[in-house]
């Protein structure tokens, strides 16, 4: 058992932290306000290798492990939650499934594009009528000669408006339910594929969250990922990995809320002394710090399970995502409380952090779904 980061993890943390503080954090308030997608910074991150953290070098990635992925996503999210999820999606929801399930041609064709940021990745699973209930999905893909014909609508898709490569889930055989689901790699400029409504989100506002609309979209057969019917399995496997990311994002957002709170509570004086001297505030700070550290350990542990090569670690991933996102919202709430009325104004970053945190409990499987996953594993 060793809790120390390895040399490369320490260096990665050091450099990503510095980059995040001086490059990402300064634009975070602006892109929250404008909703503008941070392309400049995405390009810079591509140069550093942050768009392909876990992708092997031979495909243009950095070849790091999953704990390193968590460390990087935490640092990025601490500075800018929007950027954190953009990078997480590119790494885990687009890069990972292609790396894990793609054939050699697909890996060679798409992974370098994702790693270099030439095309960003997005993950098309959720639909207007199918969120937690994945099986309620209505999108279909029908084989027609050398092509699949794709029809349907996807909603709440991060990166959608700016991505070039979409992992799209559709029924190739609806009667088989889960086992009739397949995964397709869809390129942005495919005829019949258009973007729908751009979501005006409460938080993570710079993530180009859009609807995907497929109207008789012809997808070449070679863009089927894995085999027909393997979509659901791939999806669940991918979500396990992405929950490491979302847990890490939660830890990063919570850490920024704590950092702001510590700073504020030392500066702000009431009754003649800094408010950090008051036990009510101390109690909140102590809880926040402890919860963050516990969440970080759960996230690292889920990463460790993946590093070991465990094929299923759904319980560990769900625990990390569930706990980290819950405490993140709670830590952000306490942070607003510590800031008092000022925390409710746009003069302080804490209201943005609070809004950003809330999404964590909703996406990548709501926390209710996470608890179901955990409980099912316990009672299996």
């Amino acid at each position, binding site marked *: 058992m060793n809790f120390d980061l390895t040399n*490369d993890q320490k*260096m*990665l943390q050091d450099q990503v932290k510095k980059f995040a503080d001086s490059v990402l954090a300064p634009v975070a308030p602006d892109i929250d306000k404008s909703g503008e997608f941070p392309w400049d910074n995405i390009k810079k991150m591509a140069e550093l290798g942050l768009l392909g953290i876990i992708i092997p070098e031979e495909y243009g990635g*950095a070849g790091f492990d999953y704990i390193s992925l968590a460390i990087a996503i935490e640092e990025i999210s601490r500075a800018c939650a929007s950027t954190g999820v953009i990078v997480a999606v590119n790494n885990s929801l687009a890069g990972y499934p292609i790396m894990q399930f793609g054939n050699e041609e697909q890996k060679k064709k798409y992974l370098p594009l994702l790693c270099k940021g030439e095309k960003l990745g997005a993950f098309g699973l959720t639909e207007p009528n199918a969120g937690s209930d994945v099986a309620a999905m209505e999108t279909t893909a029908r084989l027609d000669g050398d092509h699949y014909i794709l029809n349907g609508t996807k909603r709440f898709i991060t990166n959608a408006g700016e991505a070039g490569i979409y992992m799209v889930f559709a029924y190739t055989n609806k009667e088989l339910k889960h086992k009739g689901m397949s995964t397709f790699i869809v390129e942005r400029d495919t005829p019949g594929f258009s973007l729908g409504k751009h979501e005006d989100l409460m938080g993570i506002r710079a993530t180009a969250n859009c609807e995907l609309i497929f109207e008789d979209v012809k997808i070449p057969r070679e863009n089927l990922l894995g085999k027909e019917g393997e979509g659901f399995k791939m999806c669940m496997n991918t979500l396990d990995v992405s929950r490491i990311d979302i847990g890490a994002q939660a830890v990063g957002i919570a850490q920024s809320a704590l950092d702001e709170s510590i700073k504020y509570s030392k500066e702000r004086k009431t009754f003649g002394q800094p408010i950090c001297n008051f036990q009510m505030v101390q109690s909140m700070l102590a809880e926040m710090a402890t919860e963050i550290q516990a969440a970080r350990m759960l996230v690292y542990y889920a990463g460790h399970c993946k590093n070991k090569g465990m094929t299923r670690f759904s319980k560990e991933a769900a625990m990390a995502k569930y706990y980290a996102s819950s405490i993140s919202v709670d830590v952000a709430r306490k942070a607003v409380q510590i800031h008092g009325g000022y925390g409710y104004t746009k003069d302080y970053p804490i209201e943005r952090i609070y809004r950003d945190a809330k999404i964590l409990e909703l996406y990548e499987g709501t926390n209710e779904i996470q608890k179901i996953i955990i409980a099912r594993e316990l009672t299996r």
Partner: protein
Amino acid sequence: MDIIVCIKRVAQTAEADVKIDSSGKDIVKDRLTFDMNESDTYALEEAILLKEKFGGTLTAVSLGTVQAEDTLRIALAKGADSAIRIKAEDFEGLDGYKTAQLLKAAIKDLKFDVVFTGCIATDDYYSQVGVTLAELLGVPHATLVTKIDIQDTKAQVHRELEGGLIEHLDMTLPALFTIQTGINEPRYASLIAIRRAAKKEIKVIGASEIEPTGIQANASLEELFTPPAGKRAEILSGSMDEISAKVAGIIKEKGLI
């Protein structure tokens, strides 16, 4: 072109509370963060840029405790080929002069065309080590360098003087330059470079490799103390509204608006 860059890991004190420890001769360090000295990051970047332009080798050297290896490893990840740590724990009473002598001992057998250091360390504020090292190595130097243009063995060098004035020098290599902040834009190490650097060996040398005869310090620390408060500003208090009204009043009183 063979290049050496000397870097130091220092406590980051610009925005931190600095307290004297119980010995009275050192500061309380456990709450401080440590990192590469600011001007050293620019010196390192300048060295990497030079290596990228001309090829050759880049060696990073640091006198420090084992934690300095983390700083050296960052230098490796950014572009240094090899790194040497001189064990600070083997030597006592390190001042600028002694540091320069130890650095000299560590690099005297290396081939070099250029040696870079930062122009000042933010902990001890000496601005001594680079120039002393140049003297000990028997090479010319220039301090506070804000631009270097090298062709063959000639270097056109800009030094930053007071008042924004620049001094233009024509120098011959080998030479040592102490680098001023702002000369370039220090890079971040890429992830791939980090992974490669993590595996590299750092050469560690100490008392058994460096003959201590004749290496002495110039100065020894007697005591540390908090600077006496000079003239103090009148601190304006009250609500932000009251404070602002006071300031507006002062400005008005002086007839500035």
